[in-house]
């Protein structure tokens, strides 16, 4: 077997230091503003791709980033106790999941996912990191080696979006819409 060629890629990483979080939700404000269309024209923390779970009386301050969409909720659930603090069911989960309102557009219900602030040109750092002045969120880029033939086009991303639409509206409706859209072109 021929040896796979190695190349490097940059992995973006946000480090969350929950101990430094003061619960201000500036990260939610600016994330939702950044993703508004046109950019910054509105803001709405309910659309943010980062959610800060706070329970001041229990000293719970937990910024969580929106991850993958999932069509079905987990059968088994986790609860955590950390440092004597009990976290609610699903607190650490990043999924946009039918079991909860988090990480979904409040009007359409479409899933939200952190894109590390995809933008042309690239941002110096993600918006939520920039607006978190107390360093609860910090950003670093690390170089890692990857296999050459690792897929470049993230077809899964497209699939995932479609899947969620199918879940929400049914396959027929989605197919109809795609057919209609392609006729327009």
């Amino acid at each position, binding site marked *: 077997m021929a040896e796979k060629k190695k190349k490097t890629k940059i992995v973006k990483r946000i480090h969350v230091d929950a101990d430094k979080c*003061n*619960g*201000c*939700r*500036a990260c939610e*404000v*600016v994330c939702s*503003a950044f993703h*508004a269309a*046109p*950019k*910054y*024209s*509105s*803001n*709405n*923390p*309910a*659309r943010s791709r980062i959610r800060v*779970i706070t*329970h*001041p*009386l*229990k*000293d719970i*301050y937990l910024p969580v980033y929106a991850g993958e969409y999932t069509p079905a909720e987990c059968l088994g659930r986790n609860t955590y106790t950390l440092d004597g603090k009990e976290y*609610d069911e699903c607190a650490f989960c990043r999924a946009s999941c039918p079991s909860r309102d988090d990480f979904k557009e*409040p009007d359409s219900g479409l899933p939200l996912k952190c894109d590390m602030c995809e933008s042309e040109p690239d941002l110096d750092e993600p918006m939520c990191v920039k*607006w*978190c*002045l*107390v360093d609860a969120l910090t950003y670093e880029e690390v170089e890692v080696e990857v296999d050459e033939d690792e897929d470049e086009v993230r077809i899964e991303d497209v699939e995932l979006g479609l899947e969620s639409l199918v879940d929400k509206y049914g396959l027929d409706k989605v197919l109809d819409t795609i057919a209609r859209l392609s006729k327009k072109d």
Partner: protein
Amino acid sequence: MRYAETGINLEIDLSTGNIERVVSDPKDTELYLGGLGTNAKILWDRVPPEVEPFSEDNLLIFSAGLLCGTPATGCNRTIVSTISPQTQLMAFSMMGGFWAPELKYAGYDKVVLRGKSPDLVYLWIKDDKVEIRDASHLAGKGATETAELLRQELGEPRAQVAAIGLAGESRVFFASIEQGRSSASRGGIGAVMGDKRVKAIVVRGTKDINVARPDEFLGLCDEVLEYIKWRAANPIKGVMPILAGLGSPQEMAIHDEKWHTENFMWGNSRVRRKGFWTEEIEKQWTETMEGARTRLISCYNCPMKCGATISMSGLPTYMMKCFSKLTYTMAAMSDLDFGLRIAQRATEYGVDGFSAPQVMAFALELYDNGILTDEDMPGLPEGNEERFYWLLDRIVRREGIGDVLADGTYWAAKKIGNGADAYAHNNIKKHEQLPLKLSMLNPIYFLMYSTGEKINITQIEGQFPQAPFPTREEREEFVKDWFQVPDDRFKQYFLDWELRGENSIPYYPTPQMCCDIVDWQERMHYIDDALGMCAGLSSFPLKPPYHIHNYPKFITAGAGIEMDEEALTQAARRYRTLVRAINIRRGMRRKDEKPPENHWKKRFPELEKELLDTYYKFKGWNEDGIPTKETLDELGLDYVAEEFVERGILKEDEGAESGETAAE
């Protein structure tokens, strides 16, 4: 489209249960901005002076500021306005926290309550759904406790709750409205909420707030954040630590309390304890605070974390900020451990952290002097600290002597008689003030105390240093990057201000300069209260990130209202004058405009008269403090002038000869 604001007020009639969404007039936003400004307009229009505070016709208005809910850092104030049972004047207390932005996201700028509910209720506002719900199961519950119960009951962990405790339910004249880490405490607005039988207002919103010029607006926010970072690295030199940085005074973070404990008065604002702050005390209090404080916490969209969660062993956790850290301690001549413990109970009861300790210290002083006796206070415990708990418990239930004390020191003294008046010695306009007693009259503070209608000095002062710096070099250093001044002449006022000699207090700054300085300080507070900005990033600290030069840009880019410094100044003057008009219509006059008799040892009656005369003229008010017809007309408040004439407050021809209003 409306920008920054939603354009919709919720009008709730508690007597009938009627709920309406009313579209507000964009013209009013241009004229009065929002928050306090538009609240004042509503109160002027709808609450005539005959209306008693505890009347169905009194309104209780919860308003988000104009820019709340936009990304403007630190813009999170809820401005609550009503007629105060204590001062009988307009009360407009503010609270930070998270409530106002949430209301905006739910789609409303204000909640206007009128009438009275027959039973205890709470309001549940979730976007378009607005309900009045039974709260009988919450009767007597603590304010923090209520918030927790409601979030659970509704299954809405992200809902924001403004609630009253037992004090509000009992209509204690200094009852607060509590909201987690924040509270609206002054003027007894919690009593009005209790009178309307509303235990809490719960809000959750998931809608958008728009801004008019997105890129410009975000650029302005970024500048503010950059400046906050810069100031964190460059504290102001030559002032004590709590004045060197931004934010509300960092009482939760800073342990050095030498200044407060040795300069503020203890007991019933009586005793100054020089030399109190020893190493031993510092060690003990630092330990207490470190042991109690779990985390420093912020309000919505602000990095300053001026509050803290406090857990005292054996007591439920609560949240605290600012100077309430010391008010109970100092009133009871006790230590920080006591202060943090009783504050837990007081927060659940929902009382003003300035007034409540003073009222209790006042009662005990009356007792020590035989004016209140064992007959008045059967069962009063022996121990000093126990007495404070005992009094607090009775006040919030209006039990026995507590019923008298629940009206605050001014009204309580009247009821008690027998010379009790002399002990209610620290009031302005019938309201308890910070426990400060100083030596030499300060002309700037004289004017702020006298003419302030915000009743609390911390909501009037700021921007201009409280005292001169010793050397010219230090002053020159200070003015170098003082770009927040509206005009360079303010730098000159400060440069020439000396500790001693000809250019020192009380005769310098001159009355005319004092007018200028007071007017600037006041203006910035009034602008904050209309926009919903935290004073801690704007009108209160020295060299703040928000100022008269960038505010117009924020309003233009945020709300889409063309604004410049002059127009903003004029708008602020307009609703500031309207606040005064409301109070004048309720009988406030020059005779009410004075600091406590003993606030300074050295007083100067002639100078004080000149100061007040000059300031009234500067503001365009007549010698009795009433805005003249000319002033009112110039501000577009001719409807006020008309009513003043109708009511005989102004004469038809008055004001015409009162001459120029002093130049800006």
